[in-house]
């Protein structure tokens, strides 16, 4: 081999040489914890008791890691970590701004609550077939999707969380589950494939996959055509992931079929990944000033929130009604995007956090109620108040929170969004938010009325008698923990609103995101400007 003397190469030109601070390693912690504990749980899948303990330990560590990351970002600002220390935009970078950090924190919180609830909900065979490994890997996929700063890497995390969710949705293999899973799997796969098409065009047009780099180059680009094409493809893909009307058909077809813990974690997290991606895309990368885009999103938002709530009213199965309530909430989150004012975005962020926690809580408590009544059918529900008045109180509070009534956390973001729509004179959007709130309240209070206030319904002889299991106290505790977070945010919203306002500020000023990824170049530009001015 030729051993010709090579001149020394200054690696500093291509790599980041300083060691990252110790706290910054938290950026990769959710990923590592999720995968490591997922693998460990898989290895001990025959010993169900041990596997469960291991999974709960993993979920706690996962939650603590996301909490630590969020505190780190709140105190020190955006954290950037370049994989392999390749200088951006060459390597994959993880960029954790405040929005990504709080979405990841909510993921950790919801994941832990669902993991605890599943101890009573998932039976032994479902756990042996991998409930906890799938859950941990899905959580790792969701959290890392919130943290990555590379668009192709985002696609990879979408696929990771999707394949893990496929595993979760078919656990049990009942007939209706396979039917629901088929629709869920096909339509979600089509959505992510369209996401990949959009990524291909992005790479073709901008020659880069780093989000900050795309943001820089898209701001300099004057032609509308390529940007509008890419933005439309992304909008289609992410709206489908978020289950926005008219791309929502997969959600009500599948979310009522799996285990309640699976439905709960899906309702809490998966659609919000789509919302996160839309915010990241249209705030950081492609501003919504493209012609027609913001009007389209506003109409989609209004249609989603109204039709979702109407769909919930038309269902007699409680779990199916909840699927439509999830869709309605997606519409409310989307409403902030076209308005793009600090108030509106702050409302969207706050509502997304609220919805991640409360949609999960809603599914979990419906699961407890269904187990006690032996049915999810409104026609046959009843008699719960006599047995469990405390459960009635808990469910009523969750209903108030999910419908956006005081004193819980759903109220404040809706006020923000209504105010933001009226500020710019889009009265119909404000009206749609209020109307959907009213319809959601009716749909949920109806479930409350039939399950708690009506006397127990007599069962036909062929149905036999139903022996209700003892109340799942651990499951109730997990649900109450979620509700507690909503109660705190509803009664003392100030710190939460401050954080949401900060996120909105960061979103409206994408140069902050770009500067965090390319600090040297900003510094050089600063020097150049100084030289010129001198």
């Amino acid at each position: 081999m030729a051993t010709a003397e090579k001149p020394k190469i200054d690696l500093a030109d291509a790599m980041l040489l300083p060691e990252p601070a110790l706290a910054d390693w938290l950026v990769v912690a959710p990923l590592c914890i999720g995968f490591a504990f997922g693998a460990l749980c898989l290895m001990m899948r025959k010993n169900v008791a041990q596997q469960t303990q291991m999974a709960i330990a993993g979920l706690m560590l996962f939650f603590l890691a996301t909490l630590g990351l969020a505190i780190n970002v709140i105190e020190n600002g955006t954290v950037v970590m370049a994989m392999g220390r390749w200088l951006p935009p060459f390597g994959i970078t993880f960029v954790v701004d405040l929005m990504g950090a709080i979405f990841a924190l909510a993921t950790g919180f919801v994941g832990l609550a669902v993991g605890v609830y599943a101890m009573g909900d998932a039976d032994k065979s479902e756990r042996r077939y991998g409930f906890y490994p799938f859950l941990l890997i899905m959580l790792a996929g969701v959290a890392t999707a919130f943290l990555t700063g590379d668009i192709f890497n985002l696609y990879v995390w979408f696929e990771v969380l999707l394949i893990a969710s496929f595993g979760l949705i078919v656990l049990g293999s009942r007939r209706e589950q396979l039917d629901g899973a088929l629709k869920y799997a096909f339509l979600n796969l089509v959505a992510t494939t369209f996401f990949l098409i959009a990524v291909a065009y992005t790479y073709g047009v901008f020659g880069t996959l780093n989000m900050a780099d795309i943001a820089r180059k898209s701001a300099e680009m004057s032609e509308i055509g390529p940007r509008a094409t890419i933005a439309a493809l992304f909008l289609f893909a992410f709206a489908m992931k978020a289950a926005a009307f008219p791309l929502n058909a997969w959600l009500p077809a599948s979310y009522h079929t799996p285990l309640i813990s699976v439905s709960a974690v899906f309702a809490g997290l998966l659609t919000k990944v789509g919302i996160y991606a839309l915010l990241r895309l249209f705030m950081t990368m492609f501003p919504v000033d493209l012609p027609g885009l913001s009007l389209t999103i506003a109409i989609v938002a209004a249609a989603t929130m109204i039709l979702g709530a109407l769909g919930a009213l038309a269902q007699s199965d409680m779990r199916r009604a909840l699927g439509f309530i999830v869709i309605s909430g997606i519409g409310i989150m989307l409403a902030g995007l076209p308005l793009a004012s600090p108030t509106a975005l702050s409302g969207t962020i706050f509502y997304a956090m609220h919805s991640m926690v409360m949609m999960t809580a809603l599914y979990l408590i419906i699961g407890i109620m269904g187990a006690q009544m032996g049915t999810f059918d409104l026609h046959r529900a009843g008699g719960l108040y006599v047995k469990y008045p405390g459960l009635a109180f808990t469910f009523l509070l969750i209903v108030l929170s999910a419908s956006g009534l005081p004193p819980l956390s759903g109220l404040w973001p809706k006020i923000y969004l209504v105010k933001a729509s009226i500020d710019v004179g889009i009265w119909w959007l404000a009206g749609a938010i209020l109307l959907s709130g009213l319809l959601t309240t009716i749909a949920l209070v109806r479930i409350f009325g039939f399950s708690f206030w009506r006397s127990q319904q007599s069962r036909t002889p062929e149905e036999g008698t139903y022996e209700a299991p003892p109340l799942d106290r651990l499951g109730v505790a997990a649900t109450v923990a979620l509700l507690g977070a909503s109660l705190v945010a509803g009664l003392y919203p100030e710190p939460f609103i401050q954080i949401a306002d900060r996120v909105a500020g960061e979103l409206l000023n994408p140069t902050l995101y770009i500067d965090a990824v390319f600090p040297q170049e900003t510094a050089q530009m600063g020097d150049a400007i100084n030289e010129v001015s001198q």
Partner: protein
Amino acid sequence: METAMVALTGLFFAVSIYLMLSRHVVRIILGIALLSNGVNLTIFTAGRLTREVPPFIASDAYVPVEGIANPLPQALVLTAIVIAFSFFAFLLVLVFRAYQELDSDDSDHMRVAEPEDAAEPPIGY
């Protein structure tokens, strides 16, 4: 060359969308397999097509010669192929299991999760 690739990609998309519009699940799954291949060709074309110069750096040089093939789309396509293949494998099993349980591959008849004759919600107590 680009024009030919674009035409080929368009053909892939057209065929896959035609198949996905079918009621039969087997055709839909074939459509999805073709769609992912169409996307791979899109990524490949988006990375600009070049001829015959592999992206290697000679041992006595520090930069590759001009006009090498772009290695990044190849890495992306490789990742996408692996992902698409694993999803296709999962979907095949899922379709087969659904066919066993539901006894149909016609999506119009797959109404177990959302029965057509579902009762309307109760109006009063």
